[in-house]
């Protein structure tokens, strides 16, 4: 126990989280570092990349190489990190606004390129950092600061998006179900290729309705045992919220990672011969 605690602490930077009391993110942070500890990942091999938002502050609190970047750009940055150094364990974290609003254009492409990394989206259905405007996943809490008379759009479903984008691992967790969440994160990191984990979590300051703990505890269910993760249509069905909100691994579709593709490309390009800059210059002679 004490040893577990120690292992856990090894992954904390010592910087105290700035989150509000009661914020669901505390639970996520601890599930995350426990997963790191379980996987015995060397801290120096861990690259945590985030955008901007309360959730994106997470890297400061973890002992790892951390990149707190700009709003919505965690994914392309993470893709660059992994491309440059495939040895690293790359994890991108961020909010629903960061990932589905301003950063929503990058998600399909990093997924379809199967960058071998894990993307963890903290879905609190609100913009926490900017104090309570609706996000693309806001559904129940209709009268946010920028929608005082109701929302205009239907909410997006992050897991359904990830599936259609071709993410090769898609799972949904809940900040309150810490053990389950830890396990999902471990699986996601272990999975070779692009892994997506949506975490339902409540913003205690600005939206306690959408991801209300009691409500979700009531509405949730685990992915049924017989679910075929290789079937995208089955995964899409489970991803929907219609009856129950399903927690667990929804989809797996293993295929070559971006890194493997790069290796293949380099081999094809070389055709067994080695090249130098001087040899390349010869085409201009």
């Amino acid at each position: 126990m004490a040893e577990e605690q120690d292992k856990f602490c090894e992954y904390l930077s010592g910087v105290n989280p700035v989150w509000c009391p009661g914020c669901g993110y505390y639970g996520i942070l601890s599930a995350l570092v426990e997963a790191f500890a379980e996987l015995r990942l060397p801290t120096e091999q861990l690259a945590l990349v985030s955008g901007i938002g309360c959730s994106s502050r997470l890297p400061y609190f973890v002992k790892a190489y951390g990149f707190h970047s700009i709003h919505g750009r965690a994914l392309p940055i993470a893709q660059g990190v992994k491309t440059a150094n495939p040895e690293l364990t790359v994890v991108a974290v961020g909010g629903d606004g960061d990932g589905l609003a301003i950063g929503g254009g990058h998600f399909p492409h990093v997924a379809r390129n199967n960058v071998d990394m894990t993307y963890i989206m903290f879905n609190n259905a609100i913009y926490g950092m900017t104090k309570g405007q609706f996000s693309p996943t806001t559904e129940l809490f209709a009268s946010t600061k920028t929608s005082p008379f109701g929302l205009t759009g239907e909410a997006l479903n992050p897991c359904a998006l990830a599936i259609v984008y071709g993410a090769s691992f898609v799972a949904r967790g809940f900040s309150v179900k810490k053990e389950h969440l830890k396990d999902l994160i471990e699986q996601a990191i272990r999975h070779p290729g692009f892994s997506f984990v949506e975490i339902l979590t409540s913003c205690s300051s600005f939206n306690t309705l959408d991801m209300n703990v009691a409500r979700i505890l009531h509405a949730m269910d685990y992915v049924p045992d017989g679910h075929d993760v290789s079937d995208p249509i089955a995964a899409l069905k489970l991803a929907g919220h219609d009856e129950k909100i399903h927690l667990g691994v929804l989809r797996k579709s293993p295929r070559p990672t971006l890194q493997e593709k790069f290796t293949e490309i380099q081999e094809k390009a070389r055709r067994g011969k080695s090249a130098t800059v001087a040899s390349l210059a010869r085409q201009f002679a």
Partner: protein
Amino acid sequence: MHDFTLRVAGESGEGVITIAETIARIAAREGLQLVTFRTFPAEIKGGACMMQVRLSDRKISYHGEKVDCLVVLNQFALEDNVADLNPNGVLLCEAECDAPEGTFAVHKIPFERIAVREIGSRISKNIVVLGVLAHLLGIPRKSVEDFLAEKFAKKSKAILDHNMLALGKGIHFAEEHVAKREGFGFPKGSHQRQLLMTGNEAIALGAAGAGLQCFFGYPITPASEIMEWLAAHLPKLGGKVMQTEDEISAICAVAGASWAGAKAMTSTSGPGVSLMSEALGLLSMAEIPAVIVDSQRGGPSTGLPTKTEQSDLLLALYGSHGDAPRVVLAPTSVADCLTLIGRAFYLSETYQMPVIVLVDQALSARVETVDPALLDHLPQAARLKAENGDGGFARYRLNGSISPTALPGVPGCEHMVTGMEHDEFGNFACDDATHTAMTVKRFQKLAEIGTDPKMRDSCLAFGDEKAEIGIVTWGSTAGPVEEAVRIAAETGFSVRALVPRLLNPLPHAELERFFRQVKRVIVPELNFTGQLASVLRSVYRVPTIGLAKVKGVPMDPSEIVAKIAEAAAGLASTRSAEHGRRAG
């Protein structure tokens, strides 16, 4: 003849570019110096196009205003181009053309008929033209044959034979109908093979030579060829090239790759740089090296995608919110593209900040000779790095402007980089003292680059060192300016030109010395608002004489010469007024 200029004009798809490029390649092999220029039709396919090749036995920097030999493949091309033919030049035109009266020699040649009737394929027309040119310009038949043999080495023997036949027919026709002229044609080459490439190719090759490992980009005219060349060749060196979903993704992936330790780069044009504005600020703030190439085109907005312009300077200097320092370089020729892309990697890696390289459509696309020795001088820069640590790594150490970094993977140096204002450890800090100290640190780098011994050659200079009329210009306009200075000197105007290749920080010592000496400063540049001129006025408070044009093509030396004459007249009248006053 030391110098010879050829232009080929016609419809896009007719082989215009092939003809001119072949001549250029053969000349480069002979060791001649070359500058070329071509236009790009704005149409998706088809449209008028032309390519001009200037050859010389000395270093040249401009493609020539007047041409010695003009080849036109149709009447439109003739009408569009004939005004640029030297009075004692030679016009080769398709037989049906209506050639105007003139002092130049005219040869109407049934290129198409020869191709169709004697070789049996219209597309051989360009090789027929080549044959005629080989004869007229005195290019050894063997040089052309060798070149064709190499070019078609991988094709079937039948194709090569076909082309050799076309070449023979062209030469034969010319021998019978086209009188050769004494001293007209190819100058004598040095026989030191030159490389021949476009500005975009020079950038791509230079980047590979400087150690580029990861390239991310999004296609855009006129920069796409940089990415395309790299996609085809960088993987051979173990590099990675990736087309991203947009320019924001490209620059962000560059940021990520660079943070992880790779030499990383992107290339784009103005619209892409605009989109990268926010991420460029992140690179400044987080102190991450990155090389960004902007091949400028006509603006604003989508503007004139196939036309040249130098109107992104102020964006390159100031295009991010907040005080966000970046380095700006501007190559002046194709060879300089190769050299300065190397310098861009040196500066970005050394000073841990973004470096923007400004070229333009004309420079990106023009083919020019490059001395192969330049490849050996590309710097292999390395970042100041900590190799291990024991926790509490101060990524932003306030001890000089350059703090050692540690690449992800190094044990004991785990740390944060961030786009927020931060203390030495990368933790968010928003007090006055920290913000001020860190801002000073970030800007201190510019001051240090200004005195970096590796950047001593940041200016080109031409003309008379004692001249009173000065010109400051940048980028590809250096070529026309060099030519104008030469022409002006011949006409009796003494002019000095200075061309900073480093635009941020400006080479203060050289510029200040220059401004102390000259009495008038003309600033030719291809934009409307006089962007460099405005910066010079701001920094040095010198009065400038603008020569700012948005014409879509490089400036004509004659426009610059005219401005020089005007300035000289102004200077003379001031002087006589002063003289009058003193006498009075």
